């Protein structure tokens, strides 16, 4: 882990974290706007409670403060890879159901998908600074297909809500990583040696 602790690695990590935090902020703002458009187009109640949907990674986490920076990065990466597949599926479903009739919703979905892909790449870069590198994506099958069209609508609502929450969590994860480095949790720990 000596390379990961070198001054240049620390500088690069801080730079990547700063950019990642900005990206997470923009992503959250765009997802919130997309949510408004989505509920309106799908005729849903914005406050409808949606049970946990299979394949959508929950942002809620217990004992977050005990996680190391690397563990947080890995969980973030797994989540955004899952969101990338889920949003791609939503985009395909939207095109099948409505074609070009709702170009605005399609464009907004595509824009968020792009940001999620960019953020996942960002996380992979951060993990490359550690000796282990990012895990491969083998074995990640496509997300399960909802049974009916109403289930599709509800799942989309769940995906966007959870993604908005993840953007908040990711910004905090990156702030901690920038402050404490990959090996430490949030709890105060001895400073890492260069």
């Amino acid at each position, binding site marked *: 882990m000596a390379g990961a602790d070198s001054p240049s690695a620390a500088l690069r990590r801080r730079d990547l974290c700063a950019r990642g935090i900005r990206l997470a902020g923009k992503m959250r703002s765009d997802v919130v706007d997309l949510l408004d458009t989505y509920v309106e187009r799908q005729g849903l109640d914005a406050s409808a409670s949606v049970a946990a949907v299979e394949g959508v990674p929950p942002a809620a986490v217990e004992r977050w403060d005990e996680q190391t920076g690397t563990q947080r990065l890995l969980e973030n990466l797994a989540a955004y890879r899952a969101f990338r597949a889920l949003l791609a599926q939503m985009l395909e479903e939207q095109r099948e159901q*409505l074609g070009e009739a709702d170009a605005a919703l399609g464009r907004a979905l595509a824009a968020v998908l792009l940001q999620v892909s960019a953020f996942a790449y960002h996380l992979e870069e951060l993990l490359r600074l550690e000796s282990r590198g990012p895990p491969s994506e083998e074995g990640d099958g496509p997300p399960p297909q909802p*049974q*009916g*069209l*109403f*289930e599709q609508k509800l799942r989309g609502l769940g995906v966007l809500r959870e993604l908005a929450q993840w953007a908040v969590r990711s910004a905090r994860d990156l702030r901690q990583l920038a402050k404490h480095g990959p090996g430490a949790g949030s709890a105060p720990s001895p400073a890492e040696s260069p």
Partner: protein
Amino acid sequence: VSPAAAPAVISPQDPTLLIGSSLVATCTVSPDFPLKAEDLYWTLNGRRLPAASYAALGPSTLSVALARLNGSRQQSGDNLVCHSRDGGILAGSCLYVGLPPEKPVNITCWSKNMKDLTCKWAPGTEGETFLHTNYTLKYKLRWYGRDNTCQEYHTAGPYSCHIPKDLALFTPYEIWVEASNRLGVAVSDVVMLDILDVVTTDPPSDVHVSRVGDLEDQLSVRWSSPPALKDFLFQAKYQIQYRVEDSSEWKVVDDVGNQTSCRLAGLRPGTVYFVQVRCNPFGIYGSKKAGIWSDWSNPTAASTPRSERGAGGCDPKGGEQNTTLRRELKQFFGWVKKHAYGCSNLGIKLYDQWRVWLQKSHKTRNQVGKEP
């Protein structure tokens, strides 16, 4: 809505219905869930449906009767949802209520410089179908050839398609539009056209408007023919339209012919005018037909000079008198043409030419220093 076992199932699932239909839907709770029919209620698009429309068909099955359905509120379908007493969502079904498409109408097409074809049409239904309706434009050469499908939609409005290449000349095309939605398909009448008959061009380029010396009621307009015309068209008609700056009323000069310059006369002195030019590729490859007028060129502005005669410059009263006089003369000449034979050459243009001559001769006399 859950993961492995859905708490309940609605039947029918995602049905498509005609406006005015009635529907009976059932919600059956899964045996794994301890809910009875009396624990359930229905909503449609978030609005709770009256209990009077429910019926318990079994211990864990509740039905709802919907009569005379209106068109779907959103194209993604109306949300019919079965809830538990505490408001939780147990299952949902999307209702697609609408009308089948009517055949698209008013197909019009144009070709830009004989290189492509753009067509637009209007949906047949005056209102809407309430369902997502897909439009496909198809075309084929008249007596042979397979059906082709246009790929680039919405290029000239929501009901339009653009065919960018591989179009044949000198053979008519058959063109039609198919509309389809969940309730059916409708096909427009077939339109037949020859690409050469629907050609348009870019607007004329390099439009310049300038004063004609000191002549205060004239402007000279010059332009270049659109570049695409140079290769294959030698007949082109032009039209000019112009207006004063603070008016929305355009005057059209129709008889410009195929020249690339024109002089506007009878204008107001000291006034800003906007001028536009457009082109019609008339008589392409010997065709006798007119093409389609291009868009107007971007407006070009210029102002007529203001008279310097008299102390203090412009005499508004004199200007008004000139306008009134000119109007009266125009009416007089119109009357002469109708009632006096052998005077067909008299017209307002002759008067304008006389005024040009008069101003030139005044200028010459002033330059020489002689008083009239």
